[in-house]
């Protein structure tokens, strides 16, 4: 199994309802787009950072890990903004981006995968009049989570076989056998599903009132 990004904890942020967290995140996003005050933004950055590192007990290390992939963007945006506008605009945009990414990561880190999934299925439930079946989405999500380690195994197997032949660096020689095996596996799996009445279950759920 692959692990989610959720960090177990007992903080108030962990216990807050997913729906509430997502609504606050959306409100924050809209609010920040409207603000033009750097001072206000610095305040929001500080509050979000403190919530992230201490209130949610995620620590400064994880805050840094969340920020690191964005550093190159911060530099690019800052340099380009100073060239086309001024330093104040540059600061505004970099700070706004940092807060939004921190807040979004905060939601991800403090929410269990199962709670997120329940929330997604509930949202898809609202779309079911449009013909999106929640039970099938849930099934496919579970199937994909199960398949990722299985596929990594296939990739590893094929890479080992190619290394034995001395062609490990050829992407084409690696990916083609991976794909043919993956298709064979998919065929076997769909037969297994059919044999267990998947399509009938699917139809019944679709026609259920």
């Amino acid at each position, binding site marked *: 199994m692959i692990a989610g990004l959720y960090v177990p904890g007992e903080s108030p942020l962990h216990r807050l309802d997913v729906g509430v967290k997502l609504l606050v995140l959306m409100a924050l996003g809209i609010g920040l787009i409207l603000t033009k005050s750097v001072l206000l933004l610095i305040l929001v950055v500080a509050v979000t950072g403190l919530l992230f590192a201490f209130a949610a007990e995620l620590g400064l290390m994880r805050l840094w890990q969340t920020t690191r992939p964005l550093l190159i963007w911060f530099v690019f945006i800052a340099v380009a903004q100073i060239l086309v506008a001024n330093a104040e605009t540059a600061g505004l945009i970099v700070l706004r981006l940092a807060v939004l990414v921190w807040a979004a990561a905060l939601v991800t880190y403090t929410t269990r995968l199962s709670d997120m999934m329940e929330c997604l299925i509930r949202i898809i439930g609202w779309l079911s009049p449009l013909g999106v079946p929640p039970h099938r989405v849930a099934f496919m999500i579970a199937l994909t*989570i199960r398949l*990722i380690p299985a*596929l*990594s195994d296939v990739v590893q197997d094929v890479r080992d076989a190619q290394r034995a032949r001395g062609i490990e660096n050829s*992407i084409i020689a690696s990916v*083609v056998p991976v794909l043919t095996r993956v298709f064979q596996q*998919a065929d076997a799996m769909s037969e297994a599903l059919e044999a267990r009445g998947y399509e009938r279950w699917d139809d019944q759920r679709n026609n259920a009132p």
Partner: protein
Amino acid sequence: MTARDTVLIATFAALTAALGLLPPLPVPLIAVPVTLQTLGLMLAGCLLGPRRAALAMLLLLSLIALGLPLLAGGRGGLGVFIGPSAGFLIAWPLGALMIGLIARKAQQTTLMLFIANVCGGIVVVYAFGIPGIAVVSDLPITTAAFASAAFLPGDLVKAGLASVIAVSVRRAYPVAL
């Protein structure tokens, strides 16, 4: 939707995730790391057809949003949909749809699939990605386009690889698009 469609959609979502776990492709002359993840997007389009490919990418994006670290480099969660490169991600389902549509109509030759991969995997993806950078960083669209150009050589290499791979796989394992 048959059981086979369901399995193939989940399989290609998982495969694209697994390709992100592989070490990045070294491309000479440019310093930008080229991950193999968009290879999954192109292969899905060429091998599954428009509908299943788009759904596979949508499924992968849902898993990332739910909090699984499935993007290259172990990134994931809601934050990646807010960052400057969010536009590139959001375009994946549409890109796969476009590749599938062209691949279905065209002859299954390396050249035609290369054209399909360039249209869907590069043109469509950049058409969302570049405005995405421009909006998030509040910069002119030309600056954003200039910043994205660094990724173009790598993406062209991947479009070529995906077409060669797709032709061989289809020969070994034909699937109706």
